[in-house]
């Protein structure tokens, strides 16, 4: 089918085969490889995007179901060359190592803190418990985000 959707404020279209996920379409059809595939079953959050206002694992979403939807990916967080505060904080606090989980963390954290700007450390941890990081042990990520929330 011919899929039309809005990605990071731009109207995009792609030809979609039956079983393709939103993640497949973003990465392979729309040339936006920022969202990462790591588990293919919604356990690690590396593919997190905001779909019609909801945080989702794009590996679990059928692309064909996204016709007419609005999607925000990691590529859409920075505005006019300025990093999103969450991105800036992750860099400054050392919350990035191998970085494979980072796009998903940035999207999920920006989405959560946008709705809960005064979140406590425990609330941040709970909100991001669906995003797995294998490198940092989460300490630097928590420091980055609590700095913003505080």
């Amino acid at each position: 089918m011919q899929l039309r959707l809005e990605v990071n404020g731009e109207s995009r279209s792609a030809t979609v085969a039956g079983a393709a996920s939103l993640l497949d379409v973003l990465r392979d059809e729309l040339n936006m490889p920022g969202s990462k595939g790591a588990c293919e079953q919604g356990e690690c959050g590396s593919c997190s995007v905001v779909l019609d206002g909801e945080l989702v694992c794009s590996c679990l979403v059928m692309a064909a179901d996204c016709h007419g939807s609005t999607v925000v990916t990691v590529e859409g967080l920075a505005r006019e060359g300025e990093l999103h505060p969450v991105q800036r904080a992750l860099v400054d606090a050392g919350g990035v190592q191998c970085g494979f989980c980072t796009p998903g963390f940035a999207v999920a954290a920006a989405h959560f803190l946008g709705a809960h700007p005064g979140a406590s450390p425990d609330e941040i941890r709970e909100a991001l418990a669906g995003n797995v990081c294998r490198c940092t042990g989460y300490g630097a990520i928590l420091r980055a985000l609590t700095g913003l929330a505080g």
Partner: protein
Amino acid sequence: MTVDTARTVEVRGGIGESVAREDGVPKVTGDFAYASDLWADGMLWGATLHAPHARARISRLDVAPALAMAGVRAVLTQDDVPGATHFGQDEADQPVLADGEVRYWGEPVAVVAADDPDTARRAVGAIVVEYEQLDPLVDPEEALDQGEVLRSVRIRRGEPASGEVVVEGYYEVGQQDQAPLGTEAGLAIPDGEGGLDLYVTSQWTHVDHRQIVACLGVAGDMVRQHPTGIGGAFGAREDMSVHVHLCLLALRTGRPVKMVYDRAESFVGHVHRHPARMWYRHEADPDGRLVRVEAKVLIDGGPYLTTSGAVIGNASYFAVGPYRCGSVHVDGHAVRTNNPPAGAMRGFGAVQTCFAYESQMDRLAAAVGLDPVELRRRNLLRSGDPMPTSGQVIEGPLPVDEVLDELAAIPLPPEGGGDHPFSLPGGTGLTTPRSVVRRGVGFALGLKNIAFSEGYDDYADAEVVLTPAGAEIHSAAVEVGQGMITACRQIARSVLGMERVAWVPADTSQIGSAGSTSASRQTQMTGGAVHDAAAGLRDEVLARFDGDRLDDRGVWRGDELVADLDTVCADGPVRHRVRFRHPDTEPGDPETGQGDTHADFAVAAHRAVVDVDPELGLVRIVRIDTAQDVGKALNPQSVIGQIEGGIMQGVGLAIMEELVVDRGVIRNGNFTDYLLPTFADAPEVRAVLVEEGSRFGPFGAKGVGEPPTISSTPAIVAAIRDATGRDLNRVPVRPQDICL
């Protein structure tokens, strides 16, 4: 070598500063290219047929149905390998594709290149294979009895001796997976002249390259392997995965070929931590001083050698830990089975035996009626002492006392912990009221070598180049996320006095090997090469212009700029290339293991505080405190990142991470069933860095990646024992080990 620290220059972005990593911004914006993100015009997609048996004979293999499919460009089997049919960095015993017999579940049998990923996967399904199943060898003790030995290490030091207090124990370590978030992936691009460029997940491009060209049967300069973006390694990239497959497909089709393993393939696509069985006997005086340690260590290497030799070497040489003992008897064996292949993982070998010897030390403390920390203090190994295993006299600082003192000085968290679900075992599952929770505190100390040991010719090449635009570091060393590139740039800045220092990744044709990004070695090895190359370059340029210092503008004599960088580089860039070697090591004596086997050592200590629900067997790790011997923290933020991340992998091994293997078959090869620590599981970490300067290494730095993963696991288990009174001789500790 002796490091000339007197010439350290104050410069912004130099050593000791928490300089932000240069790939931080592209990683947060999604612009950073990982191997799985690479793209080439006209590229094909590769896919792999994995064997569905742990051991089988291939009685029929017919690729014709796959080859006949529209869009399929090549289907290759072991018969299509033009050069050496087997590979391996220490011994070429692993077939590129199954060689008639399958020896582990998931072994690659055939590979396909097709126009798109879906066609490639369907073509894999169209390959006809008939297997004659064979009985897999899955019991490592049976393998040892049958003589299926990959390597044995025999250590005999001192005369047999006996103590009045004897503690015997048997311990097991389950099989942990590195679970890097980025899976095995790569892109091979033919050059049209019979060669190719390969971009693939790797920890050591040159050692891959040597094996690849052997398998392809081509000259070394026909293949150029490039460092590429990697989503974590932790040992999983120490051995090859899709490397030769990509090259074979690209050369056969004449087109670029990309492969990306999915998570299920990744679980069979790399080596895992060796599972271990360990039998220990400690004998001590009534005052707790060790008299004799006997250990038998058996690790399961799976079907091929990979790096099992180094792993059983470490397990054996560090089988006693950082303790003095004059009478030591260790038999270490790595055996060959049909279980999943095992190899390098963070702390390789030292992790397994640390769990056993630290458990033994706690039991010994109980047997003689001493506090566990005091028992350790009575036995500490210090600089100038002989290693209990190899007899090697430890040169250079080994701040074991300082590590213990600093750890003890960290205040314990307050009792209680509140009723927020996040602070309770079981978390938001709301399984556990605070009233049933029992708190425990545990402690452990660990020791490991840094860089390669036992006579390995271990070196790192680096070149520092001065251009009118600034300095460049050229190296083939692979950044896997740990921050090595940032640290090397800091080193070069502090040596040169220049802020403008760029890292230029080199392929295998452009410079010699940097060695492996493993064994906590790159900060000291590539960092050492960068230090010496920068110092050589600086000295050469200063001598030429009779200057006394260098900066981003040029050469200075007093307050006078005597040559700007354009002048310095008038005849072209100035280059200084160094091959850096650590102090020589030697193989241990084959009968006794005695010898100067290691180049450097590092220690760390961990204290874990846990809350346990003894009825449900659930554990909440409240806090992990640590003090670590880091030599000199070149980038404190990055060192803390290694410590916190390494501890979390120790947390995983302690209470949740284990491959469930049933007659050679992995039953939980996905992230739903293989449990990784999440934000909800993460304890608070307090860390103290102990800086005493290393025996070698730039500005006294030591590698810091592995010690956090070594003693964190036994500290957690000791804390669970303290909370529950259970014996707990195996990791990971499962709920049923606590509550049944």
